[in-house]
């Protein structure tokens, strides 16, 4: 578990630095939470299955594979667009094409930082897919990452790192759900033996 925490720590540490640069303000992070959660509790860390979140999603493939989600509250996403991208943002749940692609780009930079650190730490190859963006119920979004677990268990392994800043607008989560097939290479690369 500590090893997995380290993955969250290092990955998100670099991502937090990227976010700080993007927003031109301090972004800190909490100690990553590594948990094995039942499917129905996947979204508890962001407020439950019906909580509406903005998500930038990347499928990760390579020697380590999984699903990586950068999740923001709807308000945080809007604020980020205004502060960082300088866009004139309309309130509400709707996002224009321009806003979606700006958020995808922010997500892309963050995901890149996270995965580069993961690859450096483990010396394993990881490739992110082109990111896609959705604003929807957290349960529906994170459920997507749990599909691969369905065949093997009733729980999923979730590495959750929460970002915090001086102000509420950077509150966000990085959530990595490694594929079950990746446990062995992941632990192996980090020098942990699993039975």
């Amino acid at each position, binding site marked *: 578990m500590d090893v997995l925490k380290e993955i969250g720590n290092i990955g998100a540490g670099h991502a937090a630095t990227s976010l700080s640069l993007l927003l031109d303000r301090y972004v800190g992070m909490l100690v990553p939470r590594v948990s094995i959660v039942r499917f129905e509790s996947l979204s508890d860390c962001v407020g439950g299955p019906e909580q509406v979140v903005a998500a930038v999603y990347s499928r990760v493939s390579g020697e380590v594979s999984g699903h990586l989600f950068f999740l923001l509250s709807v308000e945080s996403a809007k604020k980020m667009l205004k502060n960082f991208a300088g866009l004139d943002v309309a309130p509400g749940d709707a996002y224009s094409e321009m806003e979606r692609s700006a958020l995808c780009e922010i997500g892309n930079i963050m995901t890149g930082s996270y995965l580069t650190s993961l690859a450096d730490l483990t010396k394993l190859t990881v490739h992110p897919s082109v990111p896609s963006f959705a604003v929807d*119920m957290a349960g529906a979004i994170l459920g997507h990452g749990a599909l691969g677990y369905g065949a093997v268990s009733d729980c999923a392994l979730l590495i959750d790192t929460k970002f915090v800043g001086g102000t509420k607008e950077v509150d966000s989560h990085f959530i990595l759900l490694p594929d079950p097939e990746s446990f062995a290479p992941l632990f192996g690369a980090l020098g942990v033996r699993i039975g």
Partner: protein
Amino acid sequence: MMSDNMIKVGMADLNVAQTGGLKTTGLGSCIGVSLYDAKMKIAGLAHVMLPSSELARDTDFNPAKFVDTAIPELIRRMEVLGAQLRRLEAKLAGGAQMFAFSEGDVLRIGPRNVETCKNLLKQFNIPIIGEDTGGHYGRSIEVHCDTGIVYIRSVHQGVKEL
């Protein structure tokens, strides 16, 4: 909608009720299968993840995870309460593709869930009298025992009734 007395059905879970109703939240590519016996006012609801139990790696799995095991189990549980197979009617919701462009088989899970449900319900001779499936968005659903009405809520489309 949104009445009290609702039994919560989690992800990869199913349940039956004779009073009040059943609800499940945050369906993405998962599918919500609602069965109803109008005479007995018995409702059943399953929140299913994957199309086929052939995907399961071992034999001791939760039947509510797979379409081909969840539907028979749901029927069985309803029959225990007094429902009859020949009276059952089905409504389907969910089976979306949450992320439009991603590679691999995982991404077709939503539509495959819908397809498998339809095939299986046909084998059981259960008519599908309402459906709100597909698209790229999440849904929450409620089924009410007294009417059999299924309410579907989504973030961008408001409330629908089946």
